[in-house]
């Protein structure tokens, strides 16, 4: 090798080493969170194929961002920190003004993006999910170890399906309220859950059934469902009986008792806990509180939305083939009745008829 070429190669190697060292160097020790350390992100080393390039770098215009137009020695930046990025990416003035900011984005765009070139889309310094998991180890553990997985983490835009990695108007950097996010995907017919079941088209279901359960009204699917992965079926946050019948055991109803008072089922007599009573005889107790074939909540209630008040369903899938068993529930001025299906027609009274109504 000629001496001049050797010298050039040594210089190039020195520049590359310095760049790599700078790229890996954390911020000064005074930085409170090492994950938010400012990093210098050099271009990919010559051996690595870049799939994406930043326009000024691609055009060879180092001086758009640096003080010199010299690839080998571009010098300091013309503006400090994110302000330099925002001078072209002006839409970030609105984005970063949102209520909830992602600390790495607010601190330095270069925490996640290479301003020169990258192998990943959006000039990310690593594959998107892997990049998120560098900090969010807890989510990684849930996603990997949970028995029930959520496809939202591994399909489409992955983490960005639900989270805006820059800033958002909802806590946890959610792009929208949980309900709006969930329904944006769970709004198609015939989607399989991957385990032989079919997922409900919630857009259609909620349009057809106007009595919504409180968490649905509050647009908070996460009140009952985990989003990154879980151990209960349907990603439920707590235990809920899968079948029509179950022996009564309070912990099997942990999901419902997260909001509802378990006394609704455990007290044989009440005049305050529920309207489903004949006088003071608690009919929830009668149906559910059984040591063997207790009727579970799903036997009578549709948990997301129904046509009747109190989330009482029209019919319930019953038996191995899931044929629909009609409930035939009717609300009456003094209580309600269920016509013959599960049992002979029975009615209950929980209040007296107001005089004005009785006269009519």
């Amino acid at each position, binding site marked *: 090798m000629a001496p001049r070429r050797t010298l050039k190669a040594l210089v190039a190697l020195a520049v590359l080493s310095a760049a790599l060292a700078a790229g890996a160097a954390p911020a000064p020790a005074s930085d409170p969170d090492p994950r938010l350390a400012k990093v210098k992100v050099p271009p990919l080393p010559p051996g690595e194929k870049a799939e994406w390039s930043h326009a000024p770098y691609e055009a060879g215009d180092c001086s758009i961002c640096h003080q010199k137009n010299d690839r080998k020695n571009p010098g300091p930046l013309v503006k400090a920190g994110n302000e330099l990025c925002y001078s072209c990416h002006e839409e970030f003035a609105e984005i970063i003004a949102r209520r909830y900011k992602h600390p790495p984005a607010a601190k330095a765009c270069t925490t996640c993006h290479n301003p020169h070139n990258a192998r990943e889309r959006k000039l990310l310094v690593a594959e998107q999910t892997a990049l998120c998991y560098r900090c969010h180890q807890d989510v990684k553990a849930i996603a990997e170890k949970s028995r029930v997985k959520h496809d939202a983490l591994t399909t489409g835009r992955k983490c960005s399906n639900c989270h805006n990695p820059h800033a958002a108007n909802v806590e946890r950097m959610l792009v929208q*309220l949980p309900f709006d996010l969930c329904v944006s995907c769970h709004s198609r017919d015939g989607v399989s859950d991957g385990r032989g079941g079919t997922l409900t088209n919630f857009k259609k279901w909620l349009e057809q059934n106007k009595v919504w359960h409180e968490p649905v009204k509050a647009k908070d699917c996460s009140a009952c469902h985990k989003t990154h992965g879980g151990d209960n079926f349907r990603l439920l946050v707590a235990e809920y009986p899968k079948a029509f019948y179950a022996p009564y055991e309070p912990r099997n109803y942990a999901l419902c008792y997260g909001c509802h008072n378990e006394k609704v089922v455990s007290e044989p007599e009440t005049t305050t806990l529920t309207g489903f009573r004949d006088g003071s005889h608690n009919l929830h107790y009668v149906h559910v509180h059984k040591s063997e074939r207790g009727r579970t909540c799903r036997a009578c209630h549709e948990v997301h939305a129904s046509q009747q008040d109190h989330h009482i369903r029209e019919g319930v899938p019953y038996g191995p083939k899931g044929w629909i068993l009609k409930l035939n529930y009717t609300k009456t001025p003094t209580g309600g009745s269920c016509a013959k299906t599960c049992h002979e027609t029975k009615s209950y009274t929980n209040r007296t008829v107001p005089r004005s109504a009785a006269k009519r």
Partner: protein
Amino acid sequence: MLARRLAALAAALLPAAGVPAGELQPGDPVPDEELPTLDGGKAPLLSKKALANVFVFVRPGQEASLDTLRQMAGCEKDLAGKPVYWVAVVSGGVPAEAVRGMVRDAGVRMPVLVDRGDALYSRLGVRTHPLVGLADARHRLAAWHPYTRLNYCEAIKARIRFLLGEIDEAALRKVLEPPVATMPGADASKVGMRDVNLGRRQLQQRLYDKALSSARKALERDPGLAAAHALVGEVLAAQGDCPAALEAFAEALELDPGDAHALAGKKACGG
């Protein structure tokens, strides 16, 4: 008048019809009463002086109730000094020691009312926990707000600030229905502006061909981007082609009559 306004607002903000969380409806008068407190004293459900009354129904041994109290402790602190009256309400049937533990853990300052025999629960028709109710200065129910894991404190604070007259309905709605946090690349004209801004820097550095190329790239993304037409004009003017530049400025001004770059460029070209 206010009651009708509250009822209309509550109806507008409820995404679906049906029985509300508590059976008392927005606009209905809330029956006031004095109840025993956890520390052995007595306190009313509502205040005669406050402009906003907040009652927080919780139950010990329930994760969501503890989270609610923690979030309300933050809200209480954020709104300290304002005419807001806060109380927590627990059923008289739950062990006092468990309630004390929950209150201590959450760090709330508000009095905790003990509803003996669940009489208040029954009167208000409250059957689930946690649940926050809000009433105005005239003791009319403004809203029931059931628990949400996210944005709970923000939503309650916004409802309170609405009752205090600090924000209007539009601002309240914006908190309860926050706008979508769009991704940076979602709007073609905003992406086009990146090219325009880059082109402007290239123009400053007299990289005319590159600046023109950036402006045209922006126009490919959004042909209606006035700033990109203006940049084309500026580059052409810098290259000494004022007739062509004036055409570009005219296109920019047709799209945005106030475009400052196009107006200045047109003037400089004698247009």
